[in-house]
């Protein structure tokens, strides 16, 4: 039981999540077995998830050791996720073009360490090009920021 395997970690995470849902679910009316309320199905599903999580943990010994899992790409992963989380609030404040411009420039210059010219050309091309394609030609509504950008 001392060895952490991929299944043991995932099972523990899922079990914690299901316990969290069960805790939060107490705010919802449960109804009765014959007439279920809005809290009935989430509770049932959270209990099922808890059961499967415990089964996963119980059989986790055969799974791959956690130490054997390679995480070499984690720096890229963190940077990309950071960009996604940045893009969400920025879209309606900076507008689509500026948000994508900043995000792509960050990836290419900071993460991929490309030159200024390549970074600028790619970031401008992608942000303004996709805006033109989707907003202007395909009429997909995209947000505009300061100065109508």
């Amino acid at each position, binding site marked *: 039981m001392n060895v952490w395997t991929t299944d043991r970690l995932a099972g523990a995470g899922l079990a914690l999540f299901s316990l969290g849902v069960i805790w939060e679910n107490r705010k919802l009316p449960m109804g009765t077995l014959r007439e279920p309320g809005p809290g009935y199905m989430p509770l049932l599903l959270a209990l099922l998830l808890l059961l499967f*999580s415990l089964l996963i943990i119980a059989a986790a010994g055969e799974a791959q050791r956690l130490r054997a899992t390679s995480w070499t790409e984690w720096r890229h992963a963190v940077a990309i996720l950071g960009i996604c*989380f940045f893009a969400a609030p920025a879209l309606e404040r900076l507008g689509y073009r500026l948000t994508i411009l900043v995000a792509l420039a960050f990836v290419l210059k900071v993460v991929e360490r490309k030159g200024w010219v390549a970074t600028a050309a790619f970031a401008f091309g992608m*942000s303004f090009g996709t805006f033109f394609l989707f907003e202007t030609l*395909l009429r997909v509504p995209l*947000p505009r920021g300061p100065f109508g950008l």
Partner: protein
Amino acid sequence: MLETFQNLYLGFSVALAPAVLLYAFVGCVIGTLVGVLPGVGPLAGISLLLPATFGLDATKALVLLAGIYYGAMYGGSTTSILMRIPGETASVMTCIDGYAMTRNGRAGPALAIAAVGSYIAGTVSVVALMVLAPPLASFALRFGPPEYVGLLLLGLLVLAYMSGGSMRKSLAMAALGLLLGMVGLDHMTGFLRFAYGVMELGDGIGIVPVAVGLFGVSEILLSAGQATPPEVFKPRLRDLPPSRQEWRDSWGPIGRGTVLGFFIGIIPGSAHVISTFVSYALERRLSKHPERFGQGAVEGVAGPESANNSATSGSFVPMLALGVPAGAIPAVLMAAMMVHGVSPGPLLIEQQPALFWGFIASMYVGNLVLLILNLPLVGLFVNLLRIPYHFLYPAIIAFCVLGVYAVNSSVVDVLIMAAMGLLGYLLRKLNFEVAPIVLGVVLAPLLEMSVRQSLAMSGGSYAIFIERPIAASLLLVGLGLLLLSLWPLLRRAGDWRRAVGLAGQPMFEEEEK
């Protein structure tokens, strides 16, 4: 029969209209690109292009999105054969013998057999879809809420049983998806669940941010920072024709792959992926020289490629006839139909015959377009892979943000996509499958509503699920599958899924990219 031909005539009159033809062509081209590019599977491709269809009518939108779906099935084989990189998950098996054929100097024939096999399978399976969907839809009119409960539970159990890896892990993922599907308004009482004051969550968690996050973003998180792709082989047009022996060896696998793929496609789950594994195992079992498999056997390309294209049409059967998606991709297509005011299900064929038969006819046209497109232009598509990945993945991320935002003009959806990307990345690193989560999110509201309506019908008696023959039969089959999955554990007996490479391998998610 005469009625079917009349309907098909109606369908072709819709599908051959210049505008619809154009959208079928555009869908096929985009689909091929999506299939060729590693990191953008058909699911992410369809999700991202969904907002671009908002200005179109339902027929054109559906024809375009379906074109992307089967175009991706064609395109995925190109990179599998030439670079040993599956453009999408259903092409994993093609890598083995397709790439071996390339190494043996037979890349052209491998591509030609894959394209012809895909064309034959695609066309034959559309005939089967045309024949099977209308009677199934008539039968489904007898379905009430208890039958839908049986059908949905069976669907989830089949998905878990047929998926790679252990059933408990797949069921845990399905339960997680169902739980995520509980977020939002409870339609029977008007209660808001797990919304925490976020207005956008009132309508629940959307399928598009979940699908793009779990498949598109997580794929980029896994593959960015990895080694550069290998050398790209570029076949010439004159190298494409297969030899007479290669044709002879391919007809049987193409025929078997077509039949197998269609019927596996109907079953809920990652059907097109499973069909390729089963087809490959079957061809190897039937071969007089199984030792050739892995060394460049043309049967190892013909069978799986036919099977995955046939499964694509098969997966439309439950979606169109029952209104129940057989997997994550039909689920997104179904969401797209609903956005356009079309309700897939038993009444679709009766109420919107032009849309249904136009869609069927467009699939014939699309398959022909793909055959013409794929062979002569293969060199052009392969050039895409010469784009350095450090430029490609930021572009894909930009498309993900754009596509997800544009569906509802909601920044909350972009946040959900990012969170799902993180979840998908972690789960895939830990060898879990994410497809059941997507299906769970889609099915959750329907399942809950059906359970509660059933209980309202029966005055609170759960016996309604076993008193009605169709519901009882569906639940019985589900129970049987559950017991079947336990059988190898109890007896330590051979599991047929292991024999065909389905069990114990995280094949859908961890394939070489």
